[in-house]
């Protein structure tokens, strides 16, 4: 069991943590036609926007209630109302994701009350979902904000509009396949989500992914020149059909509460996969899907769970890749500074390859931290990992780790947010058999290059 150190420090140096609203806005961007709206000062939105734009190299829709000193003192209800009405007029969103910040949480705006008054005053907007989530900057980190948002998205009562009921009939005839809800945790990139969808579809299921970043932030050109709201993702229609799913697959420990909510609300069972990288973890996932597929088949015929042939092939490829790369991973000392779920996934994969986790730093509390493949983990900042990483062979963290890696003379493999000095962050896939294999090759190549440099300087 891993001990979790939370040093009470008065100073954070080279922060690793991003704030809850950043994570919340990322989750909202996985819903189609959505505008995330920060209730705070304009800077709260601007900073999150710059991070997301630079990471994904995409236009990112984010809005602000633009609180001023005066409106902070008087209370934010006018700003919220004005912001929502302006967004409807200018951007016509299908969903508004309203989230708080440190400023308005400190002030103590009564959000539930404000929203109720807004609803009473604007009956004409009754069909527009406004999903509210409380995300004070001074608590938790991006992973918490993301998880809280997914929980609120599944907890919201969507009223099927008349048009969607009508189209429901049409779509019901199209969607003959049984539906599975996939709760995609913040450890997954858009490329990861795409891979998961492909896998689930291969078993004959219709995956309802929430949030679906693979449709909005995967980096693709569209016919229309401009979109003022998120250009793809889980649609409002999908959200009204959450109750149709036969099963929930939650990926990342932080998705547990949302999975529980779905269970309580609709009685849908779930299984949580704390990670999807590494041979055994992927095996479990594939086997679960195979079993679900069998459950759905006709009970009069005895059938064994079958796995599509292509997965058998990629599993064998991964095994071969593990063989080829293990020379370079064995006994390598690695330090990681990542959010809890991503830290868990990555450190276990490295551990299973024979690498040694020399040190780990993370951003926020999580039950998964107790189960890491090392003795101690620190909730801290990048200056902590700088101390731990002396003599290590590799550092894994976001782009801010660049100067530290340079100073220590060790290579940096970039993971987490933000990554602004590497291309293709929207497409990158590090899960499933194929993604695991790619990760092993990428990191293995770094080790290989270092070794050759040392032999032949």
């Amino acid at each position: 069991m891993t001990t979790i150190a939370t040093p009470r420090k008065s100073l954070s140096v080279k922060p690793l943590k991003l704030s809850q609203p950043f994570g919340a806005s990322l989750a909202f961007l996985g819903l189609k036609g959505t505008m995330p709206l920060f209730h705070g000062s304009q800077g709260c939105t601007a900073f999150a926007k710059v991070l997301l734009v630079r990471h994904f190299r995409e236009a990112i829709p984010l809005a602000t209630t633009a609180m001023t000193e005066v409106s902070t003192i008087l209370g934010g209800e006018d700003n919220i109302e004005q912001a929502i009405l302006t967004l409807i007029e200018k951007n016509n969103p299908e969903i508004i994701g309203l989230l708080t910040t440190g400023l308005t949480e400190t002030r103590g705006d009564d959000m539930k009350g404000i929203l109720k008054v807004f609803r009473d005053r604007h009956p004409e907007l009754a069909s527009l979902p406004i999903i509210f989530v409380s995300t004070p900057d001074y608590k938790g980190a991006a992973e918490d904000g993301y998880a809280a948002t997914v929980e609120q998205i599944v907890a919201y009562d969507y009223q099927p509009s008349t048009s969607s009921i009508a189209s429901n009939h049409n779509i019901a005839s199209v969607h003959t396949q049984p539906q599975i809800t996939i709760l995609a945790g913040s450890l997954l990139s858009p490329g990861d989500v795409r891979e998961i969808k492909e896998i689930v579809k291969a078993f004959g299921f219709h995956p309802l992914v929430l949030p679906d970043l693979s449709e909005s932030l995967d980096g693709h050109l569209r016919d229309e020149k401009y979109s003022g709201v998120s250009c793809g993702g889980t649609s409002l229609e999908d959200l009204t059909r959450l109750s149709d799913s036969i099963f929930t697959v939650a990926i990342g420990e932080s998705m547990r509460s949302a999975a529980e909510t779905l269970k309580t609300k609709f009685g849908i069972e779930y299984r949580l996969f704390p990670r999807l990288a590494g041979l055994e973890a992927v095996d479990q996932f594939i086997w679960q899907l195979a079993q679900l597929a069998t459950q759905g088949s006709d009970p009069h015929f005895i059938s064994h769970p079958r796995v599509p042939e292509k997965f058998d092939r990629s599993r064998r490829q991964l095994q071969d890749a593990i063989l080829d790369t293990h020379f370079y991973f064995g006994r390598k000392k690695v330090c990681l500074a990542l959010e809890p779920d991503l830290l868990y996934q990555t450190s276990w994969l490295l551990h299973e390859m024979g690498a040694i986790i020399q040190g780990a730093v993370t951003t926020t509390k999580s039950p998964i931290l107790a189960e890491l493949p090392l003795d101690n983990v620190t909730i801290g900042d990048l200056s902590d990992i700088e101390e731990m990483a002396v003599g290590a062979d590799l550092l894994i963290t976001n782009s801010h780790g660049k100067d530290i890696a340079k100073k220590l003379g060790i290579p940096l493999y970039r993971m987490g947010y933000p990554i602004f000095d590497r291309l293709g962050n929207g497409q990158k896939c590090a899960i499933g058999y194929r993604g695991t294999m790619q990760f092993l090759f990428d990191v293995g190549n770094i080790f290989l290059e270092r070794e050759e440099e040392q032999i032949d300087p």
Partner: protein
Amino acid sequence: MKSKTKIAALLNEPGCDHNHKKDKDKNKSCKQQAKPGSAQGGCAFDGASITLVPITDAAHLVHGPIACGGNSWGSRGSLSSGPTLYKTGFTTDLSENDIIFGGEKKLYKAIARVIKEYKPAAVFVYSTCVTALIGDDIDAVCQAATNKFNKPVIPVHSAGFVGSKNLGNRLAGESLLEHVIGTAEPEYTTDYDINLIGEYNIAGEMWNVLPLFEKLGIRVLAKMTGDACYEEIATAHRAKLNVVICSKALINVARKMEERYGIPYIEESFYGIEDINKCLRDIAAKLGDENLQTKVEQLIAFETAKLDRILAPYRARLKNKRMVLYTGGVKSWSIISAAKDLGMDVVATSTRKSTEEDKARIKDLLGKDGIALEKGGATEILKVIEKTNADLLVAGGRNQYTALKARIPFLDINQERHHPYAGYSGLVEMAKEIDEALYSPIWEQVRSIAPWEKDLETREEIRTQKRLDSRSEEAIGQRY
């Protein structure tokens, strides 16, 4: 919290042309409040950081929750020729407990640790919305720390909610005026000492210009604040002239230094041949030295001749290419003159943040067909590009993907860019970058449609044609 009157005074800064007009309704752009739902810019804290973080040997400590410091550190493009401490993010990372019990003690301890472990030349302490709201007295904490550690610890009253990025620039300027400028004496002075104000050495831009001053024997005493050391700013009051670059944002510093120390100031730009020539001539004229003026003329003659040679092939390729410019303030006209130097046509530019004086200049430079964009936003930009049939958008990084997603060539002109465009050599850099953007072989590819879509279109066309033909045959048949 900063007193209301002080904020109001900064908003009404008399040095700023936004406030010169008699017609009260027309000069609201400084005082304009951000609109809920449509505001896109940064906050006062953002602005204060832009202005002060380039001071390379200082520690910049953000007193607030993680969003302010954690989400923003290490993202600015100001370069340093030496110290790198400014790149390290420091924050008190306030927790819920700190908010309930107050953050002053934590701040004091944080300052102590920064000074002990990182040995900065000074510490700038930025207040944020939350610490302003809970009433932390950062002035008192900074004073106590200054006394205890015998090191300048400077409060910056930059709570985000007091206003825009622009106001934040000015608040940072106030901190320099109150706590830094005039607190040290330079080793020596010359008659040719100037300060550069409002130049942040983005992408190393200042390094394109400093060699010119060196050649002329002009000494830059203090840079505010690109690639600056704390100490040089402390001695800024001994300069003979303040040169305010490309920005109204720090005009309060120049004006108050004139009041306090009798240092005159001029407002200049480093973009484009004409502007850089004018800048050098104005400096020489203000420093009042014929010898210097002669030297300036020689330098200008030499540099422009050299530039003409280098630019000739680019001018041939860029001639009459159409540019839409979307930026703020002074850049809205200074880039036009740079574009003209390259033979390009600026068909539209934004005037949202421009002063009346800026607007007049824009009108002059644009000619009668040019469009002045009063409104902002991605849709407006795309509309105007379509209307003017423009070849290129020149704007800040925020609009980069507005252009790219619409498959339009783009040049980044603001903070986060990686290429320096100032000075004579900067113009060559700009020409190269624009040339690359316009003539890249990628445009055809990203605009192409897939063969199967093309096939569908052709089939559709043939079908329509057939339908028309058969109809006309029918019509002919009916006639007979």
